[in-house]
């Protein structure tokens, strides 16, 4: 791919910590190679800011290959930016035009308070998993791996749901700040395989209860979450969670 240089204006959210009010800061960037990743463009900007004696912009990132789920930027009104099924770290500057203004905001949701600049607190996701997103099997208790065959289509669907990276883009995109896509992906992953069956009911009930407690909104099936999910987690998972929840709720004892 041929390499081009473009100039950009970057409007980025700055916020010192969770207690202070933040505001936007604008930076001009020249000679941005279109071969750079979006985060490498931030690296270059931060290097410049440090040289100028200013504070660099804090942002979450780690693996930079689209799998750890740490990166989380709301770019030009879309979580993870304009490319379909792509995390912020895999987004490249080829996606932008010369002279463009790029607005970068943190995930916005009461449940995800800003820690600093573009970094938010996503520990509610961990607590939702703690509520039931697991199979209770102690180390050493397992039977032979091939003792329980799993229908291939179900195993594949379970894997597709388990591909969730927990980045929170679904919450960021949802008008209700709902975490239903995240919760439903975990419930589906474990509901479709026989190992997950014994805890199927309590899992759905407990995870949804924790989700509500954390301050996420309700799902209204708009589909914005599915559209921005970097791993292509399907909206059908939410419908499945609804079914799991309803059946569990109707058949549970008092």
């Amino acid at each position: 791919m041929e390499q081009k240089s473009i100039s950009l204006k970057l409007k980025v959210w700055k916020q010192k910590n969770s207690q202070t009010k933040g505001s936007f800061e604008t930076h001009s960037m020249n000679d941005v190679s279109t071969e750079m990743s979006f985060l490498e463009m931030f690296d270059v900007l931060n290097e410049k800011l440090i040289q100028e004696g200013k504070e660099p912009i804090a942002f979450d990132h780690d693996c930079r290959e689209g799998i750890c789920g740490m990166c989380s930027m709301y770019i030009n009104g879309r979580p993870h930016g304009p490319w379909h099924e792509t995390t912020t770290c895999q987004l490249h500057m080829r996606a932008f035009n010369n002279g463009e203004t790029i607005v970068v905001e943190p995930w916005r949701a009461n449940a995800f308070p800003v820690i600093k600049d573009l970094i938010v607190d996503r520990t509610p996701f961990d607590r939702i998993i703690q509520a039931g997103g697991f199979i209770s099997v102690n180390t050493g208790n397992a039977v032979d791996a091939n003792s329980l065959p799993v229908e291939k289509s179900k195993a594949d669907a379970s894997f597709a749901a388990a591909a969730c990276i927990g980045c929170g883009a679904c919450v960021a995109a949802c008008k209700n700040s709902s975490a239903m896509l995240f919760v439903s992906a975990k419930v589906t992953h474990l509901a479709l395989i026989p190992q997950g069956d014994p805890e199927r009911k309590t899992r759905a009930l407990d995870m949804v209860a924790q989700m509500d407690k954390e301050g996420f909104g309700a799902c209204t099936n708009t589909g914005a979450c599915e559209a921005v999910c970097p791993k292509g987690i399907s909206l059908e998972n939410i419908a499945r969670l609804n079914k799991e929840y309803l059946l569990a709720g109707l058949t549970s004892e008092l």
Partner: protein
Amino acid sequence: MNWSQLLRSSIGKKIVMSITGLFLVSFLVVHVGVNACIFNDLFDTNDNGDMFNRAADFMGSTVVIRIMEIGLFLGFIIHIYQGLALELQNRSKRKKGYDVQMGNRGSKWYSRSMGLLGTILLLFLILHWWHFWIPSRFTHSGLEVPVLLSNGRISHDMFLLMKVTFSEWWIVLVYVTGCISLAYHLLHGFESAFRTLGLHNSRYLVMVHKLGIGFSIIVPLIFALMPVSFKMGWIG
């Protein structure tokens, strides 16, 4: 888990919305069926609303239906109350909003505007009750002259009330607006209700999706044709 825990959870509230919503959808079928009797006027020049008045008389005088009406009211109240409550609650989950909105990239405007569409429908509904339901049940204003039906019964002339009401341009416009809101409300609500109730099989979801589009176009269209037909003088 007790009932209140179930129904007050985020999914429980949505289940309430979908069940009442689908109940109201079934009411729409009855409502549009009964009202469509006015169009008999197009085929039978001697009808003069007789078929419609007979249907209206039947609905008004049958005990079972009157009892069901109470259920209908409950359905409306719960759907409206829960809908408004959910809307407010969902809005409160993001105190600090975005500078750049996502807009239609990823979702349809009407799926994000169910609260707004529902509110328009509520306002329309109040007007609609004022126009027809309250006169037919209580005040009888505009219904002072009884009509003799072809089955020998004497009843209110609801056909005439419609004709008079829909002679005003602004009322016709308000009703058409109401019907458009209904169409968009259904376009999202119909399929969404099934999803909320747990329908996840892609085969049936496709079916429900198509059915939903058909329903959301046909039913509101028939409703909208009523005021328009009176005003244009196609019937009455």
